[in-house]
């Protein structure tokens, strides 16, 4: 997510605290935390707080997977890409061994097959059109970008359509998850995961050097990467699984559609035990939703604490159209691809699951297509 899509202060406005939106963000967070604490679920409160911290960290560091990947693909600049790998490396130090050691915890795993590849590729197109990925859409929408609020709405709608499509794509075949710790043990699995990250970093740096581009991450990406990695660990400890984003969107959209009269009782996806439980229960009993809410309000609080909130004008209609199409593609792609750049790529690789790397390799060509489509909507290729 580039900073240009965040709401800029109105001309002449001095940097100041937006007390109204800061109060709203803090009050909303406090209400949700109070609700889950009243039910005696301290871990749920921790997930909201973890999400809140992630929203603050992403916004303050302007940490963007979408812009980083675009800069790498168009100019060869690798600093942002390496910052993203720092997040994974930090998280892997805890997730790989703990998930292998304790039955209370689990890594982000997913099968390998056509669904994963098609989903990640589609997500890649969408993230460049929307100008934000799973985490980017959350923190920029929370941070005051009306454009990304549109992207989020269509992201949610896309997730619902994706939930209806996923069973058909799974029927095309695939193989069971491949987890490093299953082959090398918990410490060997961690070593294999870190080695895979080192190899990826070496390849990325080599490409940047060949193109004469910068490959040193900025200070904000190094610090942001470490902080986001540590917060990912906190979310993992509180929720028992790596941080994920888009299942929450799927639940929100399907609950809203159900309230409007749509019937999902015949959908195979919503008959699986996990989704069925999520659809029947409170939205505050879904781990993904809890961190999503926290992230939205955390980004809102951080944005409102530093400047007037959402003072920017709405972008041109073509840009809003790109946000809507991008959101739809990301939502549909995230369901088929078993998550977004966070749940599938960061969570997958940090768990030592091969599907994380497959997702990454499939998403990059999608990003290339998305970058080529951006000028059609008045967006730059950079």
């Amino acid at each position, binding site marked *: 997510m580039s900073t240009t899509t965040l709401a800029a202060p109105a001309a002449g406005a001095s940097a100041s605290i937006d007390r109204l939106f800061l109060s*709203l963000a803090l009050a909303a967070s406090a209400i949700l935390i109070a609700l889950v604490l009243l039910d005696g679920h301290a871990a749920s409160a921790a997930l909201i707080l973890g999400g809140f911290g992630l929203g603050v960290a992403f916004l303050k560091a302007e940490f963007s997977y979408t812009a980083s990947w675009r800069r790498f693909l168009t100019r060869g600049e690798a600093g942002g890409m390496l910052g993203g790998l720092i997040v994974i490396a930090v998280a892997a130090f805890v997730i790989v061994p703990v998930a292998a050691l304790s039955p209370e915890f689990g890594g982000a795993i997913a*099968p390998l097959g056509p669904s994963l590849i098609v989903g990640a590729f589609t997500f890649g197109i969408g993230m460049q059109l929307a100008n934000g990925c799973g985490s980017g859409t959350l923190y920029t929408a929370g941070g005051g970008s009306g454009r990304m609020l549109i992207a989020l709405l269509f992201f949610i709608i896309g997730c619902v359509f994706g939930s209806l499509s996923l069973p058909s794509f*799974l029927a095309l075949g695939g193989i069971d998850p491949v987890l490093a710790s299953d082959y090398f043990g918990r410490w060997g699995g961690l070593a294999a995961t870190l080695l895979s990250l080192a190899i990826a970093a070496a390849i990325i740096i080599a490409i940047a050097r060949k193109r004469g581009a910068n490959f040193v991450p900025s200070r904000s990406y190094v610090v942001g990467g470490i902080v986001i990695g540590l917060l990912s660990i906190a979310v993992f400890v509180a929720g028992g699984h790596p941080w*994920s984003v888009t*299942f929450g969107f799927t639940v929100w959209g399907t609950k809203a559609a159900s309230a409007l009269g749509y019937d999902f009782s015949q959908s195979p*996806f919503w008959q699986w035990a*996990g*989704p069925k439980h999520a659809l029947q229960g409170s939205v505050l009993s879904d781990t*993904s939703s809890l961190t999503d809410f926290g992230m939205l309000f955390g980004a809102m609080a951080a944005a409102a604490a530093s400047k007037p909130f959402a003072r920017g004008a709405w972008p041109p209609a073509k840009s809003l159209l790109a946000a809507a199409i991008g959101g739809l593609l990301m939502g549909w792609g995230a369901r088929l691809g078993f998550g977004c750049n966070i*749940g599938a790529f960061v969570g997958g690789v940090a768990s030592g699951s091969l599907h994380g790397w497959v997702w990454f390799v499939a998403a990059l060509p999608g990003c290339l297509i998305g970058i080529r489509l951006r000028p059609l909507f008045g967006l730059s290729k950079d």
Partner: protein
Amino acid sequence: MRTVYIIVLVLGLTAIVTQHLISPSTGRAVSPEDFGGACAPCGAPCPSKR
């Protein structure tokens, strides 16, 4: 844009709170991966189990 944000925030928060209060208690927060047979973060089954 600020008005839109206020409306979205108020409606969204009201929906979350209302939905939480009228939903059956389901215990601690869970992920679809917590359920038996789940092979992905969304709870999809493993190819070998289908």
